[in-house]
């Protein structure tokens, strides 16, 4: 499941679109002047998955989303939703989206706004259900321009889901929400995922990618750095730390299965392992299990490890 994206996009691309895939981006590239915001990105999301697009600011998340929604034409490569051109899929009401910012207009109430957006879709959700889903029942008759940041964010979310689309794309949906509001937001999302929707959201909050998804795609400098379940990503990148107390000559511990790196602090030995089960078993067989401690990596470690070694993408680099 894990792979590193190609550094240079292939010169020839055979585009295949599978209608069972909700999202398919093939070797998509987008430049802004000298900045290569998205760099030969290929990704496929089957129907029904909840996927996090994880990456630090400037990784290319918003640009990727804009291309797959048909808002921004790729310089090269191709985007498809449900096997259709993005614009077509949007026209057919298969897509609902919440851009990173904006989309709220002054002088209308929440109800007026959502009634309009829902009305552009052929089979929208009933308004009451949308209000409940987004937890904005009490904001129904409030003017959209008089909402707090968190309330506005929920109304923007409601606009993305009110048409009952098959694919929901959310760009940093929980940015600027406090912890409690974020928890409520993810409860709404779980409701959607359980209805079989395909959900793609971007985030730089690691715990969100960890807890709420089937799959995490890590972006860095416009490329896919890793793609898998959050557990797979942790395992492949950050290493589990196995610590024991050992005395005397202990360099042999570095040769145990799974061990990639050893650090000795006094009598304490810290083994960084890619396969902690195998390492612990070997320690047990050698009778070296004393004060055993196993600390799994968190996604934060994985994220830092994944995104710090990639060089920034500029045109100069590739010449």
């Amino acid at each position, binding site marked *: 499941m894990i792979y590193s994206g190609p550094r240079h996009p292939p010169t020839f691309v055979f585009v295949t679109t599978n209608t069972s895939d909700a999202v398919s981006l093939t070797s998509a590239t987008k430049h802004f002047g000298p900045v290569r915001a998205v760099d030969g990105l290929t990704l496929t999301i089957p129907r029904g998955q909840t996927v996090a697009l994880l990456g630090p600011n400037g990784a290319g998340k918003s640009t990727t989303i804009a291309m797959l*929604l*048909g*808002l921004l034409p790729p310089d090269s490569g191709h985007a498809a939703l449900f096997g259709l051109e993005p614009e077509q899929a*949007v*026209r*057919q*009401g298969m*897509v*609902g*989206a919440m*851009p990173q*910012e*904006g*989309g*709220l*207009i*002054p*002088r*209308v109430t929440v109800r*007026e*706004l959502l*009634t*309009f*957006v829902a*009305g*552009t*879709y*052929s089979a929208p959700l009933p308004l009451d259900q949308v209000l409940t889903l987004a937890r904005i029942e009490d904001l129904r008759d409030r003017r959209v321009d008089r909402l707090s940041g968190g309330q506005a964010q929920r109304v923007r979310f409601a*606009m993305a889901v009110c*048409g009952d689309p098959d694919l929901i794309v959310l760009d940093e949906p929980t940015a600027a929400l406090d912890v409690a509001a974020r928890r409520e937001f993810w409860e709404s999302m779980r409701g959607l995922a359980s209805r079989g929707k395909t959900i793609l959201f971007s985030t730089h909050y690691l715990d969100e990618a960890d807890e709420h998804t089937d799959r995490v795609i890590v972006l860095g400098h416009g490329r896919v750095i890793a793609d898998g379940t959050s557990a797979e990503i942790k395992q492949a990148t950050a290493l589990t730390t196995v610590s024991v107390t050992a005395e005397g000559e202990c360099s042999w511990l570095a040769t145990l299965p799974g061990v990639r790196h050893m650090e000795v602090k006094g009598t304490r030995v810290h083994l960084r392992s890619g396969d902690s089960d195998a390492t612990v078993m070997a320690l047990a067989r050698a009778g070296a299990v004393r004060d055993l401690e196993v600390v799994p990596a968190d996604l934060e470690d994985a994220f830092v490890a994944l995104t710090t070694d990639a060089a920034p993408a500029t045109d100069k680099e590739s010449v």
Partner: protein
Amino acid sequence: MLGYVRLELIRTMRDGGYVIFGIVMPVVMYLLFTNLGLAPGDRHDAAIYTMVSMAAYGALGSAFNNGTGIAEDRAAGWLRQLRLTPLAPAQVVAGKVLIGAVSVVPSIAAVLLSGVLVNHVTLAPQQWLAIVALLWAGTVPFSLLGLGNGYRLSGQTAAMANLATMLTLSIVGGLWVPVQNFPSWLKVIAEWTPSNNYAGLSWRIAFGDPPTIHQIVLLLGWMLVFAVYAVYGYRRAGRRA
């Protein structure tokens, strides 16, 4: 698309700028001017002449206000949000033009009604019909100019540009002070403005004359220029959005 038109009309009616510049000010100015006797001719003629001027002025205000709305919508990310709904881009543009056409109606109606009710203006039914139709249809060039500014410029700049254009066209076009009172050099300029020829169609009808070829050709010419400008602005905005 009708849902879009309905939503945008709700927003327009709640827009203080629209209500003030498009409806209240023209009516107030109309009643003020007719009672100060600034227009030529006798009292009844003045009431008719100024009624057309102020209806035209109000319609201009509404038409340009609609264009300003586009710039605000873009700044608010609303145009992008619309592109993410099943509405086609052509439906959005057509909807906006329709909204402009509907939003000038209250401006025209308010001034004409004050003419009838307050200043007791009397005209033949076919005159009323022609004046309403020409005042309404004649807003198209100004709507296009306003939309062009709205697409091309950013929020605050577009609002300023549209307000300045609207006031300049109103004043130089002789909607506030009749052209007859202008110095001769300004009179020459006035006769080439779209606003003077727009109101001119209805002035002539109100006093029993048919519109002149000069007026019609000039207004159509300006409409063509502003249509090109609006399309240019729209293309530019599309590239940036």
